[in-house]
């Protein structure tokens, strides 16, 4: 019978994961303000342009606002505050 070895687990220590609730949903987007957040990836502005156009054609009663962070991949508290101040919902587009 082959000898059995005891070896170390090579993995690091992960952070604890704590559950978070999703933000409340709206009953309808009609007459609400929806922020389209451009994540600044190459060509994402062009994609958000098409999202914006879709809403203008199909759901003109939704108030669309466009916004983007100052830098890619860096938290922008001012942007978040602006969305929270007068936004009812937000869509982030588009991660690679």
């Amino acid at each position: 019978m082959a000898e059995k070895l005891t070896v170390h687990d090579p993995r690091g220590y992960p952070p604890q994961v704590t559950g978070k609730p999703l933000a409340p949903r709206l009953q309808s987007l009609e007459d609400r303000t929806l922020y389209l957040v451009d994540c600044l990836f190459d060509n994402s502005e062009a994609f958000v342009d098409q999202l914006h156009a879709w809403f203008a054609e199909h759901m003109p009663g939704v108030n669309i606002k466009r916004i983007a962070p100052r830098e890619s991949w860096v938290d922008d508290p001012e942007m978040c505050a602006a969305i929270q101040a007068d936004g009812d919902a937000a869509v982030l587009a588009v991660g690679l």
Partner: protein
Amino acid sequence: MHTHVFARLARSVARANGMPTTRQAFVPQPVVGRSEAELRAYVDGEDAVNGGPFMQRVIEGLTNPLDDEDLAGLSFDRSAPALLEPDTEETLQRLFVEERWTDFLPVVLPTEERVEAMLAGTSHARDEVVGRMRPTAFREFWEFTVEKVAVNAVMAGARPEYLPVILAAMASGMTARSSSTTSFATIAMVNGPIRNEIAMNSGTGAFGPYNHANATIGRAYSMASQNLQGGSVPGETYMGSQGNSYAYSAAFAENEERSPWTPFHVQHGFEPTDSTVSLFLGGWYTQFGTIRDDTWQERFRGALRACDPFIGPIVALDPIAANKLVDFGFDTREKLVDWLAENSLLPAREYWDNQWMQTLVRPWAVLGQEPYATHLKAEPDEAVQMFRPQDINVVVVGGETGGTYKMLAGSLRDSIVRIDDWR
């Protein structure tokens, strides 16, 4: 919203943030390079992962009622015992491969005895936290101790006397296994007395595969990055579209003894008696050349033009090449760096027609940060300087069998670490 190839990653990140039911919608990859009409077709089409109309998924994601799972989120613990269940060598080797803890080459199994022997290479306590690491900016940090680094050093085949170098590299927090779609690798260069203490190679064959210390230090840094940061699994924690062979092992020593200039680490403010490891994030392009009397300037300009403007080069000169450049008037490393920066020219149109310049640098230009703001105003055919002097690093390595140079992508990001702190 994401593109479909990132579905597994997006769900993994949501789960790791305690929100596994985060509402997500997917369009086809790529978005980069697609026309207005093509992007509109994505919006009008189906969700590329879940099926059904894409915009219906978006609207429903914003308006459908939440259920108990949405409101509770998900809490969980991912900790594991320090030691695995005992088993045979053969079974453990297979387990390590299946769990993606290796580089798919055989490893030295980290038995308790081997890890104890490795820990003799440092005076630091086994349970001291060395640092934190993550594969990319939007994933969670994992933490690791001296012992965990030693475990991975054993696996790579390193010797205890190499451990301070490996600890220093890991303490930098810069991963050798970035998740980037660009297939980054991280290249490590060692300076100072430790190079000779542990018999590293800075001469013939220094870039590999001809030296035990170089090979196993680079391998240990790579595997430790993978295992201590939460993994490097294609589709989830690794998205490099083509991969990178530098990620197997990329560590060498600077040839300080044969360099005509001050050692690299001394140029950056360290003492000659300090031992340091410098970590360069890059590994994208690699070019090669020789220094010729008549055409060296044209060759360098051509090589610089072929670099990606997002990542400056490590210009690695054999000592013969370095001394030739001294003959041409570059009696200091700084003078050469300045010349290289001034001659790194690209038409503005090409400079900006680049995914990473658009994604990461253009926002800085819009904010007014120089030199990018000026580059943004350049006419399309106007030559702009690709690199600032601080983007270019000149090092000396090689055994003088030929006056050669390599130009390889490598960005120094405040990432020179003192090895002596980890002895």
